[in-house]
C-alpha cells in the first residue's frame, strides 16, 4: 500500500500538512475478488480511492437485470457522489480482482474541512473532476441515443 503516492493522485500540489491530514483520515480497505463493496440503494457515506486492483460498477434496470456501467481503476475514485450529497447509492460496486482502496467517510471530510481545508478542497475537487467526467460521458450517451 502506498498511501502518499495515492493521495498525490488527488492533487499534486498538496503541502506536507495536508498530506498528513489525509493520511490520518483515509482508512485502508482490502476487498477479495467478487466481494461487494456497497449495493445500489444502500445509504452512502464514504468514498474510495483505489490503490491497487479494480472495481466493477453495476446498476439494475427496470426489469431488474444487472448491467455493468463502468470500472474503477487504480488512482480513480468511486462513491464520491454520496460523500458530496448524501443519498442512497446509485450503483453496486464489487471488486473485480483483489483490490486495495482508501476509504474516506463523510465525518472525516467534515473533520478535514475544519482542520485542513486544503486537504478537504483536494478531495472535493477530485470528486468534482470524477463527477464532471461522468457527466461528459453521459452527455456522449445522450448524443448516441439521439442518433439511434
Amino acid at each position, binding site marked *: 500500500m502506498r498511501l502518499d503516492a495515492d493521495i498525490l493522485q488527488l492533487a499534486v500540489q498538496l503541502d506536507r500538512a495536508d498530506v498528513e491530514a489525509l493520511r490520518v483520515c483515509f482508512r485502508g480497505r482490502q476487498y477479495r475478488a467478487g466481494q461487494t463493496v456497497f449495493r445500489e440503494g444502500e445509504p452512502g457515506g464514504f468514498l474510495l480511492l483505489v490503490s491497487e486492483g479494480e472495481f466493477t460498477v453495476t446498476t439494475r434496470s427496470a426489469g431488474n437485470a444487472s448491467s455493468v456501467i463502468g470500472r474503477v481503476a487504480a488512482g480513480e475514485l468511486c462513491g464520491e457522489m454520496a460523500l458530496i450529497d448524501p443519498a442512497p447509492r446509485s450503483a453496486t460496486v464489487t471488486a473485480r480482482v483483489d483490490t486495495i482502496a482508501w476509504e474516506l467517510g463523510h465525518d472525516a471530510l467534515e473533520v478535514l474541512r475544519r482542520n485542513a481545508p486544503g486537504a478537504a478542497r483536494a478531495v*472535493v475537487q477530485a470528486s468534482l473532476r470524477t463527477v464532471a467526467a461522468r457527466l*461528459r460521458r453521459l452527455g456522449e450517451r445522450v448524443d448516441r441515443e439521439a442518433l439511434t
Partner: protein
Amino acid sequence: MTGIGDAARRGFEPGMRFGRYEIVRRIGSGGMASVYEARHVDLAKRVALKTLHRWLALRADVVQRFVQEARTASRLDHPHVLGISDIGVEHEVPFMAMDLLEGEELAHVLHREGPLPATRLADLLLPVISAVAAAHEQGILHRDLKPENIFLARRRLRGEHPVLLDFGISKVRDGDTSGLTAADELLGTPPYMSPEQVIDGMAELDARSDQYALGVILYECSTGDLPYRNDDSIPDLLRMIARGGTRPPSARVSTLPRAFDALVLRALSVAREARFPSVIELGRALLPFASPLVQAVWAEEFGARDSPIPALAKARRGPGVAVTVRRSELDVIPCLAERDDAALDQLLAVAPASRVAAGELLFEESTTATSCFFLLAGEVEMRRGDARSTVRAGRILGGAALDSGALREATAVVRVDATVLELDRDVFASLSESQPALTGAILDRLALIAVRRLREASIRLEELSRSGPRRPRELAHLRLATAEWSVSLDESAGPSRRRPL
C-alpha cells in the same frame, strides 16, 4: 585494409575511430544520413552520431540544411527537443553528435497499440507542443511534424519522455537561412501538410501550419487513421487536404469526448484564421485531457493567466460594462451568502463584475473555458443545438471551468440585462490559498450541483430510453443540462424528480 574514405561510402564499422569518437554500432540509415551509437573517447560519453551521406556532402544546400538543423536544435535548448552537443566535418563527412536516447518513435507505439486514449495522448503531446511553441517563439517553423519525428525516450524512474526530432527542414523566419528552400519546393510529409502548404507554397507558411500538423497527429493517434488518406495518388491526397471536411475523431472512435473533437477539428481548419491563434492555445485546450500529474506540470505554461481567449475578453471588455457590486448583492448566490466580509471583499477585488445587456454573448460553445460566472441579476439563455433553457439569478454559469478548463459545451446569451461576477480559474486557484473556506464553499456548491445534475440526468435518460419512440426535444434538453450544469432538468418538459438547484 580499408581507408576512411571507403568506410564513409559503405558505413562505419564498430570500433572505428571517427575524430574524437569511436563507433559502437550503426543504429539506422535514411535517405539523408546514417545514425551511429558512438563514444566520445576523452569523455567516455555515449552519443548518437548522425553522419550525412558522403554523396550528399557535395551539395552545398544539403550541407547547409544539415548544419541548420544542428544550430536550430541547439539554439532551442528545450528539455523536449533532442540535444546537440557537437558538430563538425570528419574525413569530409559532416556530422553532429546528439543525445543518445533509448525508446521508440510515437509512430511505432501507434502501430503496436492502435488508437491511444485522449489522456495518454495529451500526456505525450503537451511536452511536444511546448517544444514547438518554444521554436515558434524564436521564429523557427518545424515544417515536418509527424509521429516519426516524436521520440518517446525511456527514462529510468520518470517513464516516457517525449522528444521532438528532426529540424532538418525547419525554417528560420527573418534569419540568414531563409534561402535554403526554393519557393516552389514541396517539403514535408504529404498527410501532415497543411492546406496552405499544399496550395500556396513555402512562402506562405506560418506557425499555424505546424499547428495543423499537430492536429493531424492528434487525429491519427486518437483514431488510428489519418484525417485524409489516399495511398494511390498524392495529388488526390493533397486535393482532399485542401478541401477539408474530415469526420470528427469520435465518428471513428466513439469513446472520444466531443470537446476533444472540437479542439482537433479546430487545429485542422482549412482557414488558418479558424485555427487556434497559437500552439500554446492548442496546448491550453488539450491540457484538461491530460492526467492530473501532467496537468500540474504544464499548468503554468498552458494555463490561462497570460493570454485570455477572445470570448472571455469579449465578455469582460466587449458587451459588459464594469460595475461596482455591493457585498449584499452576492447573497443571491447560496455559497456566497453569509460569508465573512473580508472574504467577500477579497473575492470582489479579484473577480470583475459587469453589467451585460440583453442579447450580448457571455461565452460561446467550443471556446476554452477559463472562468465561471456568478449570475447576480437578470437572465441568461443557455443554448446547445436546438435546445434552449433560461437560467435565472442565483446560479453559477460555466462552473465546469473551475475544474477542468475544457472547451465550453454550450453558449450563454444574456436574455434580460444581467449582472455577473466573473471568476477566473487561475484566480480561483490563487484565492484558495488566502481564502480556503470561501473557495471550499464554492467548490462544495459546484460539486453538489454536478452530483445532482448527474443523478437527475441518469434517471431521465433511463426514462427516455424506455419510453418507446425517440423524443428529440427532451434528449436535446437533457444534453444541454449535462453540458451546462446551471441548466436544471426540472425546468424542462417532464416531471420534477428532485429539488431544483
